[in-house]
């Protein structure tokens, strides 16, 4: 089969999955009471319906003496007066055309960060997605760089100390909660690198700020220079969130010539990326080791050795190719867990990515949920995972041509 036929087939297989996930999300959204849905997905700036005052007698619009005309208007605009199948179709259409509603006016996110109030959900997510992508790329690279050689080593030196220690690492990666490992790494790094508690980079700042938070600490003249906007950030960081022109903070800092800032942003990602990699390596290592062990006993490896090839070449070229396939397959399988770890790690390190926004929108105390952001980021994560699975399958078919024939 031609490669492109395989790709088209693989992409077509995704359609039912996407429809299914969106249907589940639609059913979940349908459980939200109508006033909350209007509040969440159709804010005052667009509907004129003000945030509901709990003392307002007309809140649920059940009181016939005070019908709220704007309420009905919003109901019609959201399509809530239509039959459920029509609502489903509307939801599918809106989701696929990236009309994911608006962020809330009075949720905890809105109260903490007023510039995130009343914004289109897609726009807010687009502000934070590049950071998560940078972090994920770094974590993936680290995972592969650590897991592949370590897995091969522990297969070659089976039942030796190196094998035992890597297996122990794999076990502890399973068993340690990410937030504990992350906090340990964070505070360990703070204490190790600056025993005095003062930042070596920004005089007068606590050392914690060197590792905690994705954006540079405000008013750190060494990093930011003197040209700051009213938020205390470089002018190309609009609202303190939105990086221009590409959206990727490291690339943008470099683009604007602030090399120190770019380096700082990258270094801030290193520790969280390592923590994520640790958990993923734990899963990957075992598969790489097992597949290497299986292949090392096969005939073609013996032939290669009998022909007098260097052992390193045999491990890398003959057996190692196989472990590459396994890495890619397992990455595809564990990608959901990999992405699911981002809210936690971004919360630990106070990184401004999509996961942190999700975590913020889940806080019930200071204003309540932000349904638009919760369901929007769930949809986004799902799309990311589906896309990653397609890429993994295509890569796998490229590496192992037998797959294309099935």
């Amino acid at each position, binding site marked *: 089969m031609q490669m492109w036929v395989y790709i088209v087939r693989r992409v077509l297989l995704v359609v*039912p*999955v996407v429809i*299914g*996930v969106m249907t*589940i*999300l639609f059913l*979940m959204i349908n*459980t*939200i*009471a109508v006033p909350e849905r209007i509040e969440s997905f159709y804010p005052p700036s667009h509907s004129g319906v003000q945030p509901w005052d709990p003392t307002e007698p007309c809140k649920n619009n059940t009181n016939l003496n005070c019908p709220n005309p704007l309420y009905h208007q919003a109901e019609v605009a959201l399509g809530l007066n239509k039959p459920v199948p029509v609502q489903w179709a509307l939801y599918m259409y809106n989701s696929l055309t990236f009309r994911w509603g608006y962020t809330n006016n009075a949720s905890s996110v809105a109260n903490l960060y007023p510039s995130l109030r009343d914004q289109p959900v897609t726009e807010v997510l687009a502000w934070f997605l590049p950071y998560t992508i940078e972090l994920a790329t770094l974590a993936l690279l680290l995972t592969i760089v650590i897991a592949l050689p370590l897995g091969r080593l522990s297969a070659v030196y089976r*039942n030796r100390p190196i094998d035992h220690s890597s297996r122990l690492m794999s*076990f*502890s990666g*399973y*068993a*340690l*909660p*990410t*937030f*504990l490992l992350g*906090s340990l790494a964070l*505070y360990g790094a*703070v*204490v190790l690198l600056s*025993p*005095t*508690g003062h930042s070596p980079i920004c005089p007068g700042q*606590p*050392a*914690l*700020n060197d590792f*905690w938070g994705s954006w540079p600490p405000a008013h750190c003249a060494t990093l930011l220079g003197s040209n700051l906007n009213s938020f205390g950030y470089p002018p190309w960081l609009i609202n303190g969130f939105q990086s221009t022109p590409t959206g990727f903070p490291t690339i943008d800092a470099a683009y604007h010539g602030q090399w120190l800032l770019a380096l700082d942003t990258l270094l801030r990602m290193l520790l969280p990326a390592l923590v994520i990699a640790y958990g993923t390596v734990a899963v990957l290592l075992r598969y790489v080791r097992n597949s290497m062990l299986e292949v090392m006993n096969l005939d073609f490896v013996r032939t290669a050795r009998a022909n007098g090839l260097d052992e390193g070449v045999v491990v890398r070229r003959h057996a190692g190719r196989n472990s590459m396939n396994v890495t890619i397959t397992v990455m595809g399988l564990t990608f*959901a*867990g990999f*992405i*699911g*770890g981002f*809210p*936690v790690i971004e*919360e*630990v390190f*106070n990184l401004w990515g999509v*996961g942190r926004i*999700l*975590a*913020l929108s*889940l*806080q*019930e*105390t*200071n204003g309540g*949920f932000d349904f638009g952001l*919760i*369901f929007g*980021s*769930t949809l986004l*994560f*799902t799309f990311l*995972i589906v896309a990653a*699975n397609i890429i993994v399958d295509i890569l796998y078919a490229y590496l192992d041509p037998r797959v294309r024939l099935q």
Partner: protein
Amino acid sequence: MSGATAPPSAAGPREPVAEPTGGERLRRQLRQSRPRRFWDRPHPQLAQLKRTWYFFSRNGLALAGLVIVLFFAVAFVYGLTYSASPTQLQEYCLTEGLAPPGNCYIGFPTVCTYPAGTAPPSPSGCYATPATYPAFVAPTVRVSPAQFGPLPFGSLATSGSTQYVYNLYAGLVKGTVWSLTMSVSIVGAGAVLGLVIGCVAGYYGGLTDEVLMRLTDIFLSVPAILLVIVVVIAASNLGVSGFSNRILLVIGAFTVTWWPLYARIVRGQVLVTREQKFVEAARASGARGGRVIRRHILPNSLYPVFVQMSLDVGTVPLLIASIVFIGFTTILPTHLPEWGSIAAVSTESLPSILSTCAIGSCVVPWWQILFPGLALFLFAISVNFVADGLRDALDPRLRR
């Protein structure tokens, strides 16, 4: 007539009994062999179990894991009998005189720090909204730098002067019960659902298989954490409330995310088992689908499920902890002590402690993080060791 009904007595001469032949003889032999003693009969499953135990017990890590798992089992029983009354669990609230005990979270303390030699801040100093307490107020743990005192084990709160008023011990012991109950029931329910769906998909194949596996793909492509959160939010919107209902809700939400993995594993196993001779024989002797699955395919597809289950039992408390950590504390009912939530909430308070005071001048309440964290870690890792040992013992290719 009378002679025919008379019982055969010893008086009459014994009639020669013809030795039965053929089928009758076989049947008689079978009948006679039935009341043999338990240990006289062959027990292939028992022998298999013995063999498994032999290989398992040669694995040092697996044995160590088993010992820790047994420790947790004992702690579970102890936790069941441990009479931690709500007042005992919430005594910090009583000593602090903050709020009525009904308004306290177990295991959700916020930490207030204050300089040595000064009076503790007023309770309201620890809250964002001091005027009125919201319905559920997080209790306050006060950490004084001067008193890096005894660990907050036992009922230290009885003396008013003790600073560590959060009864961690009670929380952890009761937490064992809840954590283990939840994780075992989640994994059990997920495995049962996955077994049924995987068996049906693998055995019948065709359109059934295609539909069920697409359904599995759908559930596998949403991150577990997010799916659980979304399901819990939806159910709360539908009005699920109350202590037991919310626990059932958590179990249900996790089950929804957990079965696809099992369905996939079981299906893969069934696809192999289905082609074997004994299944063919069962079908040839007229067994229908349900019976073949129940009696022949299911028992032969169970082992990988057991291994995966023992792996997953340790993961569930970690996932709950993660969910609480990212701030979705509403997932657990109030007053529920649980390892993950205690560890998560204590860890969450770290940055606020460390960013408000310079390093060296304030005490980090490390015990609040260490002990629940240790419980999580030990449970997960021991269960992992056991699962790994089980896999090695059950799979002849992996035996060393």
